[in-house]
C-alpha cells in the first residue's frame, strides 16, 4: 500500500501501457520495435499482478511469484525472438514484418 496512490491510478497507468504496447505491435513494421511493444504489454500485466496482490490480498504472495516467472520467461522469450529475427535477417536481409510473407496460402 503506497500512500496517496490508489489501485485505480495504477490500473489506469497499466491500461495505457497495455494499449501503447498493442498499438505498437499492430502498427510498427520493424520486428525489434514489435518485440519491444510486446515487452510493454507484458510489463503492464506484471504491474497489474503486483498491484492486485498488494491492494486486494496483501496476506498472499502469488502475484509476486507470477511476476517473477513472467520476467524470467520474458527474458528467455526475448532471447529466442532476437535469435529468430537475426536468422530472418540473414535469410532475407530485412527485418520488416511485411517482407516476411512466405507463410501465406
Amino acid at each position, binding site marked *: 500500500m503506497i500512500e496517496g496512490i490508489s489501485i485505480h491510478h495504477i490500473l489506469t497507468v497499466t491500461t495505457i501501457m497495455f494499449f501503447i504496447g498493442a498499438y505498437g505491435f499492430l502498427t510498427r513494421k520493424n520486428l525489434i520495435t514489435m518485440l519491444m511493444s510486446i515487452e510493454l504489454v507484458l510489463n503492464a500485466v506484471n504491474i497489474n499482478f503486483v498491484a492486485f496482490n498488494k491492494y486486494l490480498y496483501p496476506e498472499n504472495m502469488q502475484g509476486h511469484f507470477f511476476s517473477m516467472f513472467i520476467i524470467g520467461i520474458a527474458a528467455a522469450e526475448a532471447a529466442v525472438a532476437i535469435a529468430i529475427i537475426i536468422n530472418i535477417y540473414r535469410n532475407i536481409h530485412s527485418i520488416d*514484418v511485411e517482407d516476411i*510473407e512466405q507463410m501465406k*496460402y
Partner: protein
Amino acid sequence: MEFSYTIYIALIPFAVFVINGLFGSKIKESFTGYLGVAGMVVATYLSYFTAYHYFFKVGKAVDGAYQKVIGFNMEWLRFTESLHIDIGVLLDPISVMMLVVITTISLMVHIYSLGYMKGDKGYSRFFAFLSLFTFSMLGLVVATNIFQMYMFWELVGLSSYLLIAHYYQKPSAVAASKKAFIVTRFADLGFLIGILILSYLTGTFDFNILCNPEGPAFMQSSSAVFLGLSTMGWALILIFMGGAGKSAMFPFHIWLPDAMEGPTPVSALIHAATMVVAGVFLIARLFPIFAIVAPNALEVVAVIGGFSSIFAAVIACTQTDIKRILAFSTMSQIGYMMLALGVSGYGAEAGLGFMASMFHLFTHAMFKALLFLGAGAIIHAIHTNNLSEMGNLRKYMPITHITFLIACLAISGIPPFAGFFSKDEILVAAYNHNQIYFWVEWIVAGLTAFYMFRLYFGIFWGKEKKYEHTPHEAPFSMTFPLIFLAIASAIVGFIPFSNFVTSDGLPFDIQMHWEIALPSIGIAIFGIIVAFVFYKKESDLPNRAVASFGSFYKYALNKFYFDELYLFVAKKVIFKRFSSPIAWFDRHIIDATMDGVATITNYIALKIKGLQSGQLQQYASVFVSGVLLLIVIFIYLISV
C-alpha cells in the same frame, strides 16, 4: 512317432522361393536352378520318409483303420473361443499320398526344367515361382481346416497365373493367364460361399470334426429345402463348384487348353499332375459329408465328371496342337476321377470308387506328367506344337519315343501299365452304381486310346517333315525324368492301393474283375488299331472319316464353341446390358456428385484463400478486434 517335421516339407520350397525370388538377380543364374532341385530333393526325401512311417509304422489305429494325425498345429487367427483359424499339417492316407505325388512330380519337373529352361531370360524367376507353387500345393493338401485349404487354394491359383504368363511378352500368354485366373476365381466364389454355409451349419472349419461321422455335420438336420436340395447339399454343390473350376470340369473347362501357353514343365506340373486334381482332392477330403449327408450332391459330381470326360475326349480327337490334346486328355481323365468319387459310397467295400479315384489320381499324375514332359522334349527339339508339322521322330529321339509309348499305353489302360489298374477299378465302381456311367466311360476309354495313339503315330511315325535343323535327343537332365516317370508309369499299378487309401481308412482287398476289364481292354485295343490304320502311314482315311462326321467334327474342332458362347454372354449380355448402364450411372451420377462437391469446395477455397496473407499484423489486428468485440458483447450486450 512325431510328425512335427512334416511342416518342413512345405516350408523348404517356400524358403527356396524366398531366396530365388529376392536374390535371383544377384546370385548366379544356374545356382537358382540347382537350389530349387536341392530343396525338392530334401522335401521329396522327407515326404517319402513320412509316407513310410505313416503307412507302415504308426498310421494304423487299434482297429486297423488309418487314423488322421495332426503333425503340426498353430492357432493363426482367433476370433472367439469356438471360431478360430489354424494353420497346420493333417496327415491321413490321401494327404500323405498327395505329398508323395506332388514332391515326386515337382522334383522331376525341377530337374527337367534345368535342361528345358536353359538360356531362358526368366530362368531364376521361373524357378522361384515353381517353388512357390510347390509350397502352395503342399500347404493345400496338408490343410487341417477348410479355411487354410482355401488360402492355399488361392495361392496355387496365383502361382498358376504367374507361371502361365511366364512368356509375358507374348499377348496370347498374358490373355491365357488372365483367363485361367478369372475363370477359376469365378468358381472360387462358389467355393467361398460354400465354406461359409458349411461352417455356419456345423460351427467349425476343422476337417477332423467336419469329417467325423459322429460330428456336427451329420447331426444337424436342417429342414430348409431349396429346389429339392437341403442347405447342406447346396453348400456342398457350391464347394464342388470351386473344385470344378480348379479341375477344369465342364462348364469351367475353358481355361485349361489356353493354359498350355505356359512353359511345358509348368503344364506338366500344374496343369496335368497336381493343381488340376485339387478339385478331386477337395471332394475326397470332404467325402464323408458328401456320401452320408448329401448323396444328391455326390450325384451331381458324378454327372459333371462323366460328362466332362466324354466331352473332352471328343474334342481331344480333333485338335492338332499336341499340348492341347494333352490338356483335353487331362480334363477327360479328371472327369474319370470325379465320376469315380461320385459313384462311390462311404465305407470299405462300398468306397471302391473313392479308392479308385485316388488310385487314378496317383497313376494319372505319373503318366500325364510323363506325356507332357515328352511333349516338351519334342517341342524343345523341333520348335513347334503343331501335330501336322511332326512325323517320323522316332529315328531322332529314341528315349522320348519309348517313354512316350509307355505313357500312351498306360493312359489307354493296357495291362500291365499303371492306367489299366486304376481305370479298371473306376469302371467297376461305375458299373456297380449305374450302368449308364459304365458305358459312357467305356466309350471314353476307347476314345482315349484313339486320340493318344493318334498323337503317338502322328509324332513318331508317318512321313518325315522338313525341320529347321535335324532334331536331336534331349539332354540328360530332360531324359532322366522321362525315364524315371516311365518306370513309375509301368509299375505303380501294382501297388495294392486299397490297402492304404480308402474312404474310411479301413484297408480292404480288391480282386480283378475280368468281366469288366476285358471289354475295356478290347475297346482300348480297338482305338489303337483305328489310330494305327489312320495315322501310321499318312493317307486320306482320316479325311474321309472327318467328312462322314460332317458338322459334328467342325463343332468338336472348335471345342463346341464354348469360348465363343462365353464371350457372347460376357460381351453382348453382361457387358452391354448390365455393365455399361452401371458404368454410365457410376460415371455420370455418382462420380458427378463427388466431382461437384469437389468443384464447389475448390471454388470457395479460391475465393477465401486471401485470408491467409502471411502478414503477421493483419492476423494480430483481427485477433485484437475479436477480443475487443467479445469484451463489448460480454459487458454491454449480455447482462449476466
